[in-house]
């Protein structure tokens, strides 16, 4: 596994840091403080380095002993923690649950993962590398190339075959790195790459400055309040969580209204079952499907590929909550037919349905006063 990382690391360095002089496996050296020298066998567990622009990066170094590294790493981290620039970037590696790794970006697209013998992983969050994640820059190079024989039979999960239907001119095959390949049947050339994950923008990459003013749509803003550590932006149908200090994408949430739910890969940050309580009896994980909630929908996910293959239920982005004002757009009575003779509007109480629940509303104050009934 380590060998794979190191090999990939070498490749990544070659791509990501062409200006850097390569000193062999596991090491990289840059110019003008861009890259960080990471050495093996260095006894110091960790070091705080300064970069241009006053940016402090916490670099973990190890001597090949993962466990000791982690322990020393942690104690160094304690000391560092008082300075809140140290960002706890938890990448939940859903393919290998033991590896909730503290990740540090060394330079664009190049990562250090403490506890893995300082392997340098190029441009991909840890864990996804073993699943064949290809940095977007590399993936794009496949356009116009002959489809490798190995991919000829990589069919899409059933749930997606309806959406990307093979026809006389094109066929669709499951590619790497979060891409779908559209292949011209006559020439077998990869005609285009359809990103399965947010236009190829993934956690760990720098959030493009071109998107810096793309605010989260108003109905979703309550879900994504900016903090001193992170802020949120919306593009390509995803809400991106961006770390203030590093400018890296930490997480991405598909918004159904943006339409990238269906056919997209579930972001790693959605590894845990998170369906709202009122829907859990209806949508429980099983051998065939997983269910995950993101504002806008409960998604049906193929467990083996992590691709979203269905929208089990649409949900409103801003739900009703007890104690809060009735949101805009709910002035109309909308209780399901079967419940109307029980819950109907009067001068004293209104009833509104939202996301599986019937709520009672005070017409005078327009506040949601109670959750009356769960009807899912």
């Amino acid at each position, binding site marked *: 596994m380590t060998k794979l990382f190191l090999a990939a690391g070498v490749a990544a360095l070659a791509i990501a840091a062409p200006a850097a002089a390569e000193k062999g496996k596991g090491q990289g050296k840059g110019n003008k403080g861009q890259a960080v020298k990471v050495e093996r066998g260095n006894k110091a567990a960790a070091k705080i380095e300064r970069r241009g622009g006053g940016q402090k990066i916490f670099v973990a170094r190890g001597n090949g002993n993962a466990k000791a590294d982690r322990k020393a790493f942690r104690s160094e981290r304690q000391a560092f923690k008082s300075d809140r620039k140290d960002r706890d970037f938890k990448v939940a590696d859903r393919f290998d649950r033991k590896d909730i790794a503290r990740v540090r970006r060394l330079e664009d697209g190049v990562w250090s993962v403490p506890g893995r013998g300082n392997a340098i992983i190029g441009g991909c969050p840890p864990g996804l590398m073993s699943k064949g994640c290809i940095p977007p820059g590399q993936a794009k190079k496949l356009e116009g190339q002959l489809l490798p024989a190995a991919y000829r039979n990589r069919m899409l999960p059933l749930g997606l075959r309806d959406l990307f239907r093979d026809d006389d001119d094109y066929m669709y095959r499951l590619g790497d790195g979060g891409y779908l390949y559209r292949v011209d049947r006559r020439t077998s050339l990869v005609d285009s790459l359809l990103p399965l994950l947010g236009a190829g923008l993934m956690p760990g990459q720098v959030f493009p400055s071109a998107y810096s003013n793309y605010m989260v749509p108003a109905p979703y803003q309550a879900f994504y309040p900016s903090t001193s550590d992170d802020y949120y932006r919306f593009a390509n149908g995803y809400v991106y969580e961006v770390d203030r200090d590093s400018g890296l994408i930490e997480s991405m949430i598909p918004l159904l209204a943006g339409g990238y739910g269906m056919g997209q890969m579930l972001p790693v940050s959605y590894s845990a079952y998170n369906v709202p309580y009122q829907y859990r009896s209806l949508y429980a994980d099983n051998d065939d499907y997983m269910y995950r909630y993101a504002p806008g929908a409960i998604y049906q996910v193929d467990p083996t590929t992590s691709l979203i293959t269905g929208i089990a239920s*649409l949900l409103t982005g801003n739900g009703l909550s007890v104690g809060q004002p009735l949101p805009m757009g709910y002035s109309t009575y909308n209780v399901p037919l079967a419940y109307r003779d029980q819950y109907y509007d009067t001068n004293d109480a209104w009833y509104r349905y939202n996301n599986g629940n019937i709520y009672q509303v005070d017409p005078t104050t327009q506040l949601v006063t109670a959750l009356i009934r769960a009807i899912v």
Partner: protein
Amino acid sequence: MTRTVLSLGVAAAALAIAGCGDRDNAGQSGGAPSGEAKGAEGGQTIAAGINQQSRFFAAAKAAGLDATLGGPGPYTVLVADDAAFGKLPAGTADNWMKPESRAQLTGVLTNHILPGTILAEDIGKAIDNGKGKAVLATMGGGTLTATREGGNIVLTDAAGTKATVTKADEKHSNGVVHHIDTLLVPAQRAEG
């Protein structure tokens, strides 16, 4: 949690029943007998009830929403009839059907789906209460404005496009469908 909710529900129901004798039928929807509320939903889901040959259904299928409209819901769906698609600029609808445009297509379709079951008379009441207009939240996160023009309900989208409800209150097991004559486009978002 469920128990508390259920007992609240029972309590609310008990109150409703207890109060029945004192109130006149102003509380009931339109004064119709309660039989209308319970048994009258169609036996099928919205997905099964939409004309499977229609362009709206084809669009819903392309976006993966056909299965959703077969789920529990309930949803209020504004089905734009085939003629509505004809009103779009040439090529727009065909563009939407391509896999690359799924984002856009889903945005348009979820702009036509409202949470809960909203009948025409509910919209009418809200318009009256709102002195001539009512705002309706859509699943896509946007809003539509409902007004009355002539005898019909007219829905206006973020861009100012107006759609008239041509046939209302097609009831199904998981919600209700209203047919409209124009597609309603959501507010444009900055896209990369």
